[in-house]
């Protein structure tokens, strides 16, 4: 028996119905999309919802579209959807690069990008790329909608800005006209693993860089200090070394079962340098193909 606690399962037919259910049950309700986190958390008694609201099938939440330079990811878009999306591969390929290193096919077919943000484990994969890209989380509730910048989303391990009764409907990413990106994820081996550390870099024309780290702080962190140090400078060895030297100021890794703080810090320096180079080369259309192993 995987799940030992009883709960009520509801599958609303419309967004309004879903929001009403969430409003009614508040924190006692859990939203079910892919379920890959929710069901394992229920199994381990980390959560014990009384009502499980299955939002699959709600109209409009699956689509991945590009509207006026903004990428829109419906809350039901899975990592496999991202990997297969021609829109993503043309306009924001680093997102597919990230999706390609999430777990394995059977999980990616089910797990959603929005769900990954909502689970908000420190090692989440969606966070760094989306944070570096200044993504926004669109939220609906019975009393209206609101938008939260991803920079204000993560509040700690498994904690987000989402309130009881609210539902994430979409993630929007205002895409820079031209960019090169890179997502590097450190695992204990090549196969499926949770990130020991990760870094996302966007390189923009004019030597602008946007950088975020995952799994090296209670939440995904933006590396503003490093971005500033790089601002307007071509990526030579000295610049890269200076940027790497700032890593300890940006991250606050812990030592745990998966890696020591020392290795996490060391690897964030290594990965930052490699990701910066790859992103800059990709911006110049001269980089390794997205998805190529750089670790």
């Amino acid at each position, binding site marked *: *028996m995987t799940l*030992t606690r009883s709960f009520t399962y509801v599958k609303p037919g419309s967004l309004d119905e879903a929001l009403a259910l969430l409003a009614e049950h508040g924190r006692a309700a859990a939203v079910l999309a892919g379920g890959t986190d929710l069901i394992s958390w229920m199994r381990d008694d980390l959560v014990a919802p009384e009502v499980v609201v299955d939002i699959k099938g709600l109209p409009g939440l699956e689509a991945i579209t590009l509207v006026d330079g903004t990428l829109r990811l419906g809350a039901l878009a899975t990592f496999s959807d991202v990997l297969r999306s021609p829109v993503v591969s043309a306009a924001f390929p680093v997102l597919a690069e990230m999706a390609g290193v999430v777990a*394995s096919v059977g999980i990616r077919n089910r797990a959603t990008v929005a769900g990954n943000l909502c689970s908000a484990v420190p090692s989440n994969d969606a966070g760094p790329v989306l944070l570096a890209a200044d993504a926004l989380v669109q939220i609906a509730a019975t009393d209206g909608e609101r938008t939260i910048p991803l920079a204000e989303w993560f509040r700690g391990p498994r904690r987000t800005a989402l309130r009881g009764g609210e539902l994430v409907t979409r993630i929007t990413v205002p895409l820079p006209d031209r960019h090169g990106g890179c997502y590097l994820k*450190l695992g*204990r*081996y*090549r*196969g*499926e*693993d*949770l990130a020991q550390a990760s870094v996302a870099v966007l390189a923009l024309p004019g030597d602008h860089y946007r950088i975020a780290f995952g799994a090296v702080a209670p939440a995904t962190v933006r590396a503003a200090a490093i971005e500033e140090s790089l601002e307007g400078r071509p990526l030579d060895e000295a610049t890269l070394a200076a940027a790497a030297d700032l890593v300890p100021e940006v991250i606050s890794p812990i030592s745990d*079962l*998966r*890696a*020591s703080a*020392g*290795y996490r810090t*060391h*690897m964030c320096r*290594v990965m930052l340098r490699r990701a910066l180079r790859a992103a800059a080369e990709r911006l110049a259309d001269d980089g390794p193909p997205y998805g190529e192993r750089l*670790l």
Partner: protein
Amino acid sequence: MSGIVGRADRANAMEDLRHVGRSEVRIDGLDKVTGAAVFVDDMDFGPDLLHAAIVESPHPHARIVSIDTSEAAALPGVVRVVTGADFPFTFGLYMQDRQVFARDVVRFVGEQVAAVIARDPRTAREAARLVRVEYQERRAVFDPLEALATEAPRLHPGLGDYPHVPWFFPEPESNVAHRRRTIRGDLEAGFAAADVVLEDAYRVPRYAHCALEPHVVVARQDRAGRLTVWSASQSPYTQRHVFAQALEPLGLSHQDIRVITPYVGGGFGGKAGVSMEILGAVLATAVRGHPVKLRWSREQEFYNTYQRQGLVARLKVGARRDGTITALEHHLFWDAGAYVEYGANVVNAAGLSATGPYRIPAISLESVCVYTNLPPGGPYRGFGYSEFSFGIESHMTRLARAIGMDPVEFRRRNAIVEGDLLPYGALMNPSGLHEAIDRAAEAIAWGEEESPREPGHRVGKGFALFWKAPAMPPNASSASFLKFNEDGSINVTVSGMELGQGYLTVMAQVVAEVLAVPPDKVRVETPDTDRNPYEWQTVASHITWSCGNAVRAAALEAREKIFQVVHAAHGLEEGSLYLEDECVRCDTDPDFCLPLRDFVVAGIETPDGTYRGGPIVGSGMFMPEFSSTHADPATGQGGHPNVHYTVGAAGIILEVDPETGKMEVRRAALAVDAGKALNPALLEGQVTGGLLQGLATVLYEDMRFDEAGRLLNPNFTDYKIPTAHDIPDEVVPIIVEVPQPDGPFGARGVGEHTMIAAAPMVADAVEAAVGIRFNEMPITAERVALAVARREEPDTWAST
């Protein structure tokens, strides 16, 4: 045996084999690719099936003050709650130090204290949480060296009273459950004669088997009192025997117990002997008439089955500059866990062989089995040899470098050959060790530089030898029954287990060879102790050799009966008859051809209408009659505890990214002397699979415990076993065939051996690549990267 000479035997000469030695398709392959293969968890037992859940100790060492089951028993759906008071039984394979349920004392986190039997698994689990156990905590000890200290808490005050096999030497008043000494030659003189003496210590952590199928048992004691146990096991007969011993107070003996084992989803030693299955057996007696099912969760699979024991090894080896090893001293301290009923024999096996496959005139081995408050250690593919080989083989390379000799050449000079003295004084069996060394070295172009594929990477090569003998009681045996069916097909019953190694297929090939039928007309049945004849256990890589001999004997007996019938009906001399393509043929009458299917059940009709013969059956058995554990306890000399050794050599080409520590196996070559490869494809499967299992132990696996003895990574999220991405770019299996004189068609076992060399050769390759020697497993990317970083930037790392 038959005593028949003639063309039949000529057909079994090595050069003329039809089925043995070929890469036949597995006879269980179709079951597995279609989903037809039934495992214990797949069996249905009807609506009266009950489910058990276990109450487990949260403490590594504590006295049980009281157990209150009343609340659990009152939960609707609960049928029975039982504790050690209901079943105050001990059990164990080699030493009876284990309790069915902890009674007065718990000795590891997760140990079973009580059980709830309920109508459904959810109720059982819920009720298990309601059992109130009051504990008084005791000081615990987790490190074998600390456990040896006089002030260490003693885990088993009753050690002196535990029944055990005669080749164990427990030391009551301490935590030493067994100490095996093997001493030969003048050690002092040996070290004095050496130009270089190298001393160091090596540490190997605990490992988990990680068979994909968790342990599961279903048991039912019927109204007439008969106990049937369906279990995912490597050892149906040994289980029956241990159950009969443990349940003797209930009036049960062997004839009252039946163990049935269908397909098993991997074992690797973890399903040998008896672990959680004893719970199924006793619980069934508490709810007579009902089948009771107990299936371990993946977490329980990690913390309450056998684990590979941890090892701290202190090694001292001396050599002369000409490359001759003069003396070896090896102290092995095993973290054997809370109960050592099986694990002590791992310690024993290591204590007999921890020289590695080398000719050394003076040796002293001391292998110490130490109780700790961690889960019970036990058998794991390699049975102690992987553990001690990490130190031995690392040391051999280092010693070679210290005297300025190529490490492969150093091994060539000292590698054991047929007739050399084994550590315990008997003689080494025929072996192709030198051929294996040469071929493995050639396969990785030993001595040639390789350039890295990526700039900044470094490439290193590693090399290691391995050997292993089956660790068995001297009278471990195998038996087989065989019968013909009306269509000339054959059923063979044995009690070895198909764990995936391809055993059923190889047994079918042996029968096919002797009886001249295609292997796919031979069904080899999984065990049922009521029907299938005796087999000790499917462990020790002995089954091809031992059961292969038994099956061959059964087939030869059937063949003899066939010839007798043909002789009786047709008057042809038995010595002139032979089998070919499912027919009996005759040397002296080329036109004679009698299809087996025409008579192997019906018999042969004679001119007067009467029949000769009848159903053809055969039986065979094998037991080595030269093995003995009688030896001087002080030196281990005088006995013949091991039947033979299988040997080999392996090499690796490893590419290392010194910045990240990431290692990629570009090529791994492993040469093993199988005596005779009965099915080369399946043997290569053992190489590919075993090598990867070994590589994982050195590259990323290990069991991590916190300071309270709790396992921190009891799942595949954090105990990483390799995925399809984590394989060598290339594996080169090399089969050496120097026949084993008493093996079926010359075969000896190889199953465990393929993982033994992996760890030390990686350690070698890492040193060759980045110049850092690691004496502790695993050698993770993290450890490599940090060691390199500390060396390159000592200032940055001074504070860490």
